[in-house]
């Protein structure tokens, strides 16, 4: 494609200021993104995909640090449910993250040093505003759809509430309209693990090239448990021992589940920035879409004519089905066209990232229904 704005490994510096919910502004905001497929001449086939907490713009391309395929390669691609033969798919790294978009690890132009903890606390809506500015850059006035799972679903819900005219359909998978006390509690455990690591140094660790890896790994381990189900863990690991015949009567990783979690923690710190983890979990904890609309969730959806599709998974205890049902009730109250299904899966919250034929069928059918 000749147009340099489209393709893989793209980056843009947004013009002007990004005004933040916290009252501050960011200037010179960089957004790293990728696009797949051809934008129709009328721009009517654009689909924005919003990523989860630790994901990034590599929805359909090989990850540069891990070498793994795109995080939603089962959902997005030629002939896939979100078909890039017929759609132009855009996925951008959220602000606050660490894969090329402006975040706490970026250089503050006013000091020439990394922002670290001087980076402003951002919200889900701030992420969405930055995405809208990216769409301005791409010349896309209205999205055919915005699609997201988990934190991506929070952004997807924020889209019609923030830009009612700019989105025609909304897909929200394994997500919620607000963080509960339990959600906040788990995130706080993770943040405290990072901050308790002496290498965190009040967030000012970038120049030491020795990040708080131990703290971030513990944060990831705790969070990872919430992404799985008890049944899934039992099926995968049970009480099986790791590469040994008997318990070691020590504190090595005796159990396979311990070894697995340690691996999850260690591999995470190679690809993620600890301060980004603090900022993005904060944004999720601050998310309460009803609160932004006078305390009534239905009010968030009254201005938009968009259609909605929600999917939950029966073993997801991070954002359980009841949270999706709250959203559906609000959509009904607002008179919006809504689809919702709870799918069965043994994989807990992470089910949305795996190849789930029924989810694929629902998403594909929903998107086709809006053609």
């Amino acid at each position, binding site marked *: 494609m000749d147009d340099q704005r489209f393709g893989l490994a793209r980056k843009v510096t947004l013009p002007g200021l990004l005004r933040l919910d916290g009252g501050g502004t960011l200037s010179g905001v960089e957004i790293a993104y990728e696009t797949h497929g051809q934008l129709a001449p009328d721009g009517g086939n654009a689909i924005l995909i919003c990523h989860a907490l630790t994901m990034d713009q590599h929805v359909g391309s090989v990850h540069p640090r891990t070498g793994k395929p795109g995080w939603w390669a089962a959902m997005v691609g030629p002939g896939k449910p979100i078909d890039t033969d017929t759609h132009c798919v855009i996925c951008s790294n959220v602000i606050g993250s660490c894969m090329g978009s402006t975040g706490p690890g970026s250089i503050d132009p006013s000091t020439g040093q990394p922002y670290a903890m001087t980076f402003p606390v951002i919200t889900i809506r701030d992420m969405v505003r930055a995405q809208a500015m990216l769409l301005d850059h791409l010349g896309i006035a209205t999205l055919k759809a915005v699609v997201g799972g988990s934190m991506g679903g929070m952004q997807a819900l924020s889209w019609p509430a923030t830009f009612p005219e700019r989105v025609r359909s909304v897909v929200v998978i394994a997500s919620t309209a607000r963080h509960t006390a339990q959600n906040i509690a788990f995130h706080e455990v993770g943040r405290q693990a990072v901050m308790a690591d002496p290498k965190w140094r009040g967030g000012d660790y970038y120049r030491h090239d020795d990040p708080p890896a131990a703290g971030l790994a513990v944060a990831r381990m705790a969070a990872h448990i919430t992404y799985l189900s008890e049944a899934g863990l039992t099926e995968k690991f049970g009480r099986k021992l790791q590469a040994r015949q008997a318990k070691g009567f020590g504190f090595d990783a005796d159990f396979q589940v311990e070894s697995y979690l340690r691996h999850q923690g260690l591999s995470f710190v190679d690809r993620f920035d600890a301060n980004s983890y603090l900022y993005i979990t904060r944004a999720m904890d601050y998310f309460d879409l009803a609160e932004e609309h006078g305390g009534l969730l239905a009010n968030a959806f009254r201005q938009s004519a968009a*259609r909605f*599709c*929600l999917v939950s998974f029966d073993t997801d205890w991070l954002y359980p089905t009841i949270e999706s*049902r709250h959203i*559906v*009730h*609000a959509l*009904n*109250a607002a*008179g919006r*066209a*809504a*689809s*919702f*299904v*709870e*799918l*069965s899966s043994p994989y807990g919250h992470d089910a949305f990232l795996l190849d789930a034929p*029924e989810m694929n*069928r*629902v998403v*594909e*059918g*929903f998107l*086709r*229904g*809006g053609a």
Partner: protein
Amino acid sequence: MTASLRPDLAVIAGHVAAGARVLDIGCGDGALMAALRDERGVDARGLEIDAANVAAAVGRGLPVVQGDADRDLAGYPDKSFDYAILSQTLQTCRAPDHVLDELLRIGRRAFVSFPNFAHWRVRLSLLVGGRMPVTGLLPEQWYDTPNIHHVTIDDFRAFVRERQVTVEGAWFLSRRRLRGAAGANLLAEHAVFLLRR
């Protein structure tokens, strides 16, 4: 369009005004909704309890939410639909009286269809066989039937009368064909009522 629909749905489809807003409660795989949308330009929304049915309906582009008529109707505003439809679902509700109230609150009018438990074949099965009837119309055994509140046409007539609900129309079916109101409680397998409060 109506030829391929279940007979009670065909009756309902034939009496919904073009361009109306419809909530189909217990919409199954969305057969009625699809027919109404495609043939009459109806804005049809659905509620269905079974996940596989919901996935099938959403897969054909229909706005259907998974939910339970007993529990998930409260969020819909008053008179937000021209018609609320409850087909072959009343007898499965835990609180059919409450669901009917909700139907008449949400819809300006309501269609209700149900299998008639006083049909002669059902009566005969109970009278002669002494067993809970298992018929083409009621194919499940007593222990696995979803039908927990069996109702007859005369029961339903008395029920709406007591609750001062207006009957705007009533259709009776046996062997997939319409029949008259006379003797319907004995001779009709299905009934469809159009109600208004």
